[in-house]
């Protein structure tokens, strides 16, 4: 009985970490099996918007996923995966393009082959681009630009990092992307060194074997050059006529590898309560009525953007809440040790629970697989353990010494300027 207990505890400890990364035919393959009833395989490709040579190419490529290949047509892809009961999806971040297939256990030969055939032999037909891809790109871009929160964070990235990480996730209607642009971007990114295969609910050896069999013929080209990110900051104001909430983003960024102290700062300032219907105990818990503040913590491989998104129904409320945010940021370095402990626990929980679902696993551990670093969540947790008051104060004061990134979206005539908030 006791022995059985001990072994299950061990199993859960192992399950915490991701499986080791194996280089199969030049492709990094990593899989973990918690015994889920379904499997998922993700091809994580370094083809995010920071690598694009023309605005919107990465977004177009993301929407081109699972269209015609030399093996099967777009319709065939959809119908055949429906027969297997699988779900295909593609998602884009600033660094990676993720092509994911989720399916029942045992169907992995078909779905790995399907993903591979897109990576190695996509046709990129002009008529498919016009008929299926362009409408989706347009509607996604429209939806993003009509959501003030997304719009503000996109603008904040542009202000903060200008090129590279600054390029938008969404295609711009004023920059036409031609099918040749997409083809050449795909040709330069779909190479072995740029792809990592991540599996969940699937055996590592089985996945390696399948990848070896199907992806062995993929071209191996050097990784795309990406200039290291630099933080700039700045201020912009955009009129929004969509009638959404008045929005202000107050952010700071820093270049370099992600710093656990900034994650702790984000957890410290986040007004999201631990208990429903309560205000929480964050320094931002006493907000004016009708306003909300969200903390935004976005770590990238060589830079971090941290900020607070203030939204409200009236510009006056946003101004008052913005003043509170600016004050809280200024006082954050002198945090009480009890509050820091609470923030660290909150950040640790956020880091640990983010790998509970599949998206989280891909987001958190995918970059680590590429970097070849320790692919477990434990390293992130121990990094947070090492944060103390002095390190926190130092990290926060360096972060706040930079120029703020300030974005106002909404009624620009009455929304506050950065200096009016005391930034």
């Amino acid at each position, binding site marked *: 009985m006791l022995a059985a207990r001990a072994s299950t505890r061990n199993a859960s400890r192992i399950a915490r970490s991701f499986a080791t990364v194996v280089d199969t035919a030049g492709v990094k393959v990593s899989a973990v099996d918690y015994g889920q009833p379904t499997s998922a395989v993700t091809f994580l490709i370094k083809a995010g918007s920071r690598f694009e040579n023309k605005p919107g190419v990465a977004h177009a490529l993301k929407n081109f996923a699972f269209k015609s290949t030399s093996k099967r*047509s777009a*319709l*065939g892809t959809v*119908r055949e995966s429906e*027969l297997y009961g699988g779900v295909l999806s593609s998602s884009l971040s600033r660094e990676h393009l993720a092509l994911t297939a989720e399916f029942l256990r045992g169907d992995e030969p078909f779905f790995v082959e399907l993903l591979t055939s897109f990576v190695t032999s996509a046709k990129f037909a*002009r*008529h498919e681009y*016009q*008929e299926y891809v362009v409408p989706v790109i347009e509607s996604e871009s429209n939806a993003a630009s009509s959501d003030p929160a997304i719009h503000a964070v996109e603008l904040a990235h542009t202000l903060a990092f200008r090129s590279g990480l600054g390029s938008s996730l969404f295609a711009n209607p004023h920059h036409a992307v031609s099918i040749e642009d997409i083809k050449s971007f795909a040709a330069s990114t779909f190479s072995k060194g740029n792809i990592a295969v991540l599996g969940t609910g699937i055996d590592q050896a089985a996945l390696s074997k399948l990848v070896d069999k199907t992806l062995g013929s993929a071209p191996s080209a050097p990784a795309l050059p990406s200039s290291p990110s630099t933080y700039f900051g700045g201020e912009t104001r955009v009129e929004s006529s969509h009638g959404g909430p008045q929005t202000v983003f107050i952010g700071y960024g820093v270049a370099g590898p992600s710093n656990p102290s900034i994650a702790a700062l984000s957890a410290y300032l986040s007004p999201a309560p631990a208990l429903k219907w309560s205000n929480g105990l964050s320094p931002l818990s006493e907000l004016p009525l009708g306003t909300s503040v969200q903390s935004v913590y976005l770590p990238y491989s060589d830079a971090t953007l941290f900020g607070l998104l203030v939204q409200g129904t009236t510009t006056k409320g946003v101004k008052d809440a913005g003043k509170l945010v600016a004050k809280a940021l200024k006082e954050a370095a002198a945090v009480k040790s009890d509050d820091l402990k609470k923030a660290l626990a909150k950040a640790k929980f956020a880091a640990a629970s983010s790998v509970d679902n599949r998206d989280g696993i891909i987001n958190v551990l995918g970059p680590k697989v590429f970097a070849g670093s320790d692919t477990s969540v434990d390293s992130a947790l121990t990094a947070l353990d090492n944060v103390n008051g002095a390190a926190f104060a130092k990290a926060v004061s360096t972060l706040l010494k930079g120029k703020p990134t300030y974005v106002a979206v909404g009624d620009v005539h009455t929304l506050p300027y950065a200096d009016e908030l005391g930034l």
Partner: protein
Amino acid sequence: MALGYSLAGWIKSSRTLSKYIKPVANWYADLAGYRQMGLKYDDLLVEESPTVQRALNRLTDRERYDRAYRFKIASHSSLTHKPLPKEQWVSANEDKRYLKPHVEEVLKENEERLVWDTMTVERK
């Protein structure tokens, strides 16, 4: 049938047949008179069908513009009841099937959709 029935493939596959029929076919195509009006053969394709409409959408901008321009020229020469001056006639090697490949592609897609729609699934 968007493209109409054709024996062309069968005739082309036989050397003897194509040797005898090709001169007749070329003579007939010249006689039909559409080249004298500045049109290409694919301009005559019946476009009032969803298949061909879909194929027309797949032309490049340049091809679409040229097609409209040829129609304009042709309707003008129809109005004047005169063929174009000889140097403006479409020559036999300009008379390419620019639309046919697209129509065939659309037909193939329709057929594939029908196959998927009407298949029976068997568990192996």
